[in-house]
């Protein structure tokens, strides 16, 4: 009971404090957009009389909602069959399919409208993944498989990482460079998927399944699904202080305006304190686990930074990180990391929309969300006809194509794969 109360208080403080300013996005967004339009008109880059397109910008490409909707069905289908690749595909839609990438690029490097449209693409991706993550994270929270100290350590890293990266890159990165980095992430995912489809990868998987079968009988008779988590060791006080300090850093960065060095120092202090928390020990299903507090903290920084920079959910990175690097059982990291993703996304969207005043086209997000859930109903009905291995191969090809295209377009200025 005491455990869940601590977790609840911690969660409410982080989400409550960070979510509230998210709701105040409108005035800043409107100002920044009209400023960028005015500048474009003054410099002769925007025709005042042209028909309004994306975000109401005169002369911008009018986003075709039907294409957006159909693309989202495809994204939903991927989410429900292969998984994580869906977030990447949502990004591909915003950059390429809707023609926003080329429009932003035409303004030239460093131009306000280029930065605004680039940031809007990132925030649109985050709304798409983050909003849905909210509901599913709540479901995992209800399942009660949470290790509060683990969640706190991840959040200490994640909260700092997800404001620092938008702060360091928003408005400073052009769409061209963003394309290149996005391409690297897609290619990396493609390589991971490819390794799973090779003979060695398949053999490893077969071996794992055989090992699993050996423990099947015990699993059936185990009947211990109700055993929960029991914390044996861990400094709560230090963890709460560290979390409070990084939350304060995010708030300072987003609301205080001047003296940004205070926010940087606060984030570093919060992260530094985690090194003094030491080892956290707990039992789960009667088995003892332990981890150094700074490991999930460092993972949290890296993953939240990457997720918020690319505008994709970090969930697909948290779970493999904690199961592979920290060696924790899947069930423990699943719900916990889901919540950290949510917190990270809130801070990140908030940083872009309030701190940096980035607008979003709501109608498009609505049409896309509708497409995604329709796709999620189609996925389970088609996946039984397509073997897993072939689905993976399909996405390996797609990931290599999209990755190479974006990397070359971003860093060389032209694509080495068609269309050039």
């Amino acid at each position, binding site marked *: 009971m005491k455990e869940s109360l601590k977790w609840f208080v911690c969660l409410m403080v982080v989400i409550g404090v960070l979510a509230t300013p998210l709701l105040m996005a409108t005035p800043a967004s409107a100002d920044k957009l009209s400023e960028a339009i005015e500048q474009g008109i003054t410099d002769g880059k925007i025709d005042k009389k042209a028909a309004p397109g994306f975000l109401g910008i005169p002369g911008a490409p009018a986003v075709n909602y039907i294409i957006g909707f159909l693309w989202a069905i495809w994204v*939903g289908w991927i989410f*429900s069959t292969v998984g994580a690749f869906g977030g990447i595909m949502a990004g591909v839609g915003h950059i390429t399919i809707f023609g926003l990438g080329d429009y932003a690029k035409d303004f030239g490097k460093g131009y306000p409208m280029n930065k605004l449209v680039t940031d809007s693409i990132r925030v649109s991706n985050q709304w798409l993944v983050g909003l849905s993550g909210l509901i599913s994270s709540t479901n995992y929270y209800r399942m009660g498989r949470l290790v509060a100290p683990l969640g706190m350590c991840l959040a200490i890293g994640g909260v700092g990482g997800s404001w620092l990266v938008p702060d360091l890159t928003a408005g400073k990165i052009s769409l061209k460079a963003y394309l290149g980095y996005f391409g690297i992430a897609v290619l990396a995912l493609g390589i991971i998927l490819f390794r799973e489809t090779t003979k060695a990868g398949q053999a490893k998987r077969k071996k794992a399944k055989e*090992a699993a079968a050996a423990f099947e009988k015990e699993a059936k008779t185990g009947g211990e699904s109700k055993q929960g988590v029991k914390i044996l060791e861990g400094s709560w006080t230090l963890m709460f202080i560290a979390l409070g300090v990084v939350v304060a850093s995010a708030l300072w960065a987003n609301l205080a305006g001047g003296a940004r060095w205070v926010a940087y120092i606060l984030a570093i202090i919060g992260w530094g304190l985690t090194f003094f928390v030491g080892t956290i020990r707990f039992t789960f*299903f009667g088995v003892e686990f332990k981890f150094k507090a700074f490991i999930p903290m460092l993972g949290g920084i890296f993953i939240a930074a990457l997720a918020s920079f690319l505008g994709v959910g970090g*969930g697909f990175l948290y*779970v493999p990180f904690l*199961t592979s690097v920290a060696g924790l059982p899947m069930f423990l990291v699943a719900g916990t990391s889901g919540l950290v993703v949510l917190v990270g996304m809130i801070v990140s969207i908030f940083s872009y929309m309030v701190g940096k005043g980035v607008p979003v086209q709501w109608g498009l997000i609505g049409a896309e969300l509708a497409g995604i859930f329709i796709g999620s109903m189609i996925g389970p009905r088609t996946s039984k006809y397509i073997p897993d291995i072939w689905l993976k191969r399909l996405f390996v090809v797609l990931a290599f194509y999209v990755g190479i295209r974006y990397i070359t377009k971003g860093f060389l200025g032209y694509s080495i794969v068609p269309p050039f």
Partner: protein
Amino acid sequence: MDFVSGLIEAIDSLLIAPYRWPKNPVIGWWIGTFILAVWTSLLGKLTIALVFRANRSHIKETVQEMSRRHSQSMNALRAGDRAAYKAINKLANEAFGKSFFLQVAMASASLWPLPLALAWLQMRFSSVDFPLPVNLPLIGKSVGYVFIFIPLYILVRILLSKFKFSR
């Protein structure tokens, strides 16, 4: 005109009506926005119920697979077979990924009306400012419709969750 804007304009008269019920525009704003939040929540709840019904057996399968792999990995760990634990944990992780992203995609069924409601509010109230009692840094003296609507939406979702809908 795109179909989303067309849809929003088609239901405009239905959505704006409650705003005009009372003579006082401030009271009208609160009543109208509250009713909009109710519509948004109910539509989301209805859609997610339909999607869950459609995908019920598949969700059950993915969750069962996840639980089975988890139990197997814990048994391997208890038996002291660290290598088997790591291998099975990877399978469990994969099963979790499938279940998680399926539910992420399905969750959008519950949320799709929210951005559409925000789009309608943007169309109707983007030029309206709501004064704040204090001047906040970066925010200023006033806020827009999002500041009012999202807390109301969350409140309505919480209130509606108290009612049990028979399935």
